[in-house]
């Protein structure tokens, strides 16, 4: 059951492939034969123009990190917040389950949880929270502006919802997706807990990883 964003991205993927095919054809038959004969066409990074792993945030140990620090590793990126009672712990537990199915390949993955509620989710709070899910999980926070910039980079939407009974009077509404980003920081795929088993996501991710060393 693909989510709408996945469907949209698949459409973008198809459109990009059509553009690539047109461009290759335009370059002429000789070049085409040579290219196809030598190697597979280069993988199109879906939505690369739209979704990038670009940010400057504080990790849960209090160190300043940017998207560049995670280049060279595959990144699983999820936005949420620690006051989230259901979707966030469910998704992070799911992500931990996926990580445990990657075997030795886990060393090539940086799993990242970015809070959309930085005023309450300080590095200390994030440290205690992420370690409960998985020892590899990296919690990132920052100023409101830094978090907003990171969310924009991933095209992630979030908003504050007033809820008078909630602590401090609000909850956050947010996208519940796990973004899988390539070692170059480009978009590879998106998953949502509940759409497929952890085993299925792990299989998909391992296939992507073995296709691109």
């Amino acid at each position, binding site marked *: 059951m693909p*989510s*709408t*964003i996945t469907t949209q991205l698949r459409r973008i993927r198809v459109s990009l492939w059509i553009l690539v095919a047109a461009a290759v054809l335009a370059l002429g038959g000789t070049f085409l034969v040579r290219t196809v004969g030598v190697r597979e066409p280069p993988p199109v990074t879906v939505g690369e123009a739209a979704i990038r792993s670009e940010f400057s945030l504080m990790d849960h140990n209090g160190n300043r990190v940017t998207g560049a620090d995670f280049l060279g590793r595959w990144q699983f990126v999820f936005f949420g917040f*620690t*006051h989230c*009672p*259901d*979707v966030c*712990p*469910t*998704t992070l*537990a799911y992500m*931990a*389950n996926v990580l445990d199915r990657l075997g030795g390949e886990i060393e090539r993955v940086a799993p990242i949880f970015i809070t959309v509620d930085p005023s309450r989710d300080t590095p200390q*709070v994030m440290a*205690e*929270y992420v370690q*409960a*899910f998985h020892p590899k999980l990296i919690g990132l926070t920052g100023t409101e502006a830094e978090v907003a910039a990171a969310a924009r980079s991933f095209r992630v*939407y*979030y*908003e504050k*919802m007033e*809820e008078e*009974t*909630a*602590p401090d009077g609000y*909850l956050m*509404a*947010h*996208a*519940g*997706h796990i973004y899988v980003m390539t070692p170059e920081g480009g978009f590879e795929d998106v998953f*949502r*807990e*509940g759409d497929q*088993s952890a085993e299925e996501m792990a299989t998909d991710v391992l296939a992507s990883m073995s296709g691109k060393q």
Partner: protein
Amino acid sequence: MMRKLTATVAVAVVIATPALAEESIRVFDAWARATILASRPGAAYVTVESATEDQLLGVATPVAGQVMVQAVEKDGDINRMKHIETLDLPAGERITLAPGGMHLMLMGLQDKLSEGTTLPMTLSFENAGEITVEGSVLGIAAEGPREAAE
């Protein structure tokens, strides 16, 4: 897939125990997920089945200041929580609260919910009155009590 399987198993269990059918309302599989940090809302889940049409009016537990029934609405790719004032229980229909979907949000927890403990939850129904069940606090990665029992 696991949820479908769980539901199938649950149906099989009910078919195998017709003696329970004489009860007008059943509340079972009550559980909560352990919480990691203090003063954060928790989430609890139950399955309710009423032989006759009824409504869940509210839930209370001594460990939390307030309990709210919350649905997760997926609006495109955004998850919004929606407070359900009264939960309709159509006759004979099983309503299962589960992670990633409808849940009981426990506000004002006095302590963190620790795995291995239990919490009493009193559900108030329009017709059936109050029913108190004991829920198990499962680990943060739990998907439900049946899985834990398997």
